[in-house]
């Protein structure tokens, strides 16, 4: 019997290696796998490359992982926000690398990794600093820049429901980066609010099919998310 459900956050983190590229879902707090990030902090892997839309907030979660010196590089679209204090300290001190990627290019690069596309062309960023040094090319009279697939060793995602085959659904805008990250990583770990029996999720409405998911762990996020 296939059973991707693991019983603890520690089990969910087993085997994550130093030097891994870790894709972290969420857009702000919504769809962010908070419990998995805390578990990764516990687990101890270091020298990580983290891919997330933001560079952490306050001194918890991703920011805490960075503050502990465990993140070598961050790839994101929006590093600087009101709460990105840890990132800014580390960045000014030269203690963390940064790759800024337009948000849509970031999503598309991960989708490409999941779909077996090593590189593709896009109009986004042409004529800007973010296209500097990249290959440019014309198609039908318009200029595009080549972007490469962005693959993860691990993806940490947050979902609403999950079953033992790893099928996931997301709630409202909690979907965001999670499905593309799930398909782009070698090992995808999902924290879910609800475990469902096999077949309970309507087959037409599975958002991430289990083929993209390695482990599922149920977490309690508190009443406000229920």
């Amino acid at each position, binding site marked *: 019997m296939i059973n991707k459900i693991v019983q603890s956050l520690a089990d969910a983190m087993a085997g994550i290696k130093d030097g891994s590229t870790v894709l972290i879902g969420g*857009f*702000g*707090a*919504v*769809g962010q796998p908070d419990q998995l990030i805390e578990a990764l902090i516990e687990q101890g892997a270091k020298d990580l490359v983290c891919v997330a839309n933001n560079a952490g907030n306050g001194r918890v979660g991703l920011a805490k992982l960075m503050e502990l010196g465990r993140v070598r590089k961050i790839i994101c*679209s*929006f*590093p*600087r*926000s009101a709460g990105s204090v840890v*990132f*800014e300290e580390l*960045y000014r001190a030269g203690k963390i690398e*940064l790759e*800024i*990627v*337009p*948000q*849509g*290019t970031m*999503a*598309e690069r*991960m*989708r490409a990794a999941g779909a077996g596309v090593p590189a593709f062309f*896009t*109009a*986004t*960023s*042409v*004529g*800007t*600093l*973010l296209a500097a040094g990249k290959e440019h090319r014309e198609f039908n009279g318009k200029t595009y820049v080549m972007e490469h697939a962005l693959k993860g060793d691990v993806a940490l995602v947050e979902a609403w429901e999950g079953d033992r085959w790893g099928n996931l659904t*997301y*709630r*409202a*805008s*909690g*979907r*965001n*980066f*999670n*499905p*593309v990250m799930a398909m782009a990583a070698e090992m995808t770990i999902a924290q879910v609010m609800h475990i469902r029996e096999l077949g309970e999720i309507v087959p037409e409405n599975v*958002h991430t099919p289990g083929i993209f998911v390695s482990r599922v762990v149920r977490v309690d996020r508190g009443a*406000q*998310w229920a």
Partner: protein
Amino acid sequence: MQGFDRKGMAARAAQDIPEGWYVNLGIGIPTMIADYVPLEREVILHSENGILGMGPAPAPDKVDPWLVNAGKQAVTLRPGGSYCHHADSFAMIRGGHIDLCVLGAFEVAENGDIANWATSENDTAPAVGGAMDLGAGAKRLWVVMEHTTKDGRPKLVAKCGYPLTTPRAVKRVYTNLGVFDVVPEKGFVVLDLAPGVSLEQAQAASGATLHTQ
């Protein structure tokens, strides 16, 4: 010189959005435009984080923590709205399916260049978000911004000084002083001046020629 206040700029831009358009509104004054599109004029709002058919802010006791817009503010979903993932959401933008995007800006140049993400080449960690995707992908890009900086420097310019977000993308600019089309081979063309603002006043506050139609 009177001119529009922030609400007035948003309301003025809202007038020009016809029913049926798919529209992405950037953070700041652009977001306020939604408040001036009556719900019965169906304009479908898109948010980068995977929302199509966004509605107004909820009452404080009706906030759904799972539902925020690209500015991370609580929003609602209209009947007929839907959710998708980030790659699908940006396919809407990058594939040319969004009729209109309205952004704020530091500068707009007379050739349509927009600068709105980094305040200098030395700012090595600027936040780009989805601005470059929207600039390059939307069918039309409008900008809503103050006509000048707080210290009085023009934001409508002959050439952008700040790093570009997207070259030759802006089609129209709404400021506190008026509405200006960006016309290829010509530059800024005055479409409308705010109440109490003269062409001379608007020109004096601009770093590029304002043409009349």
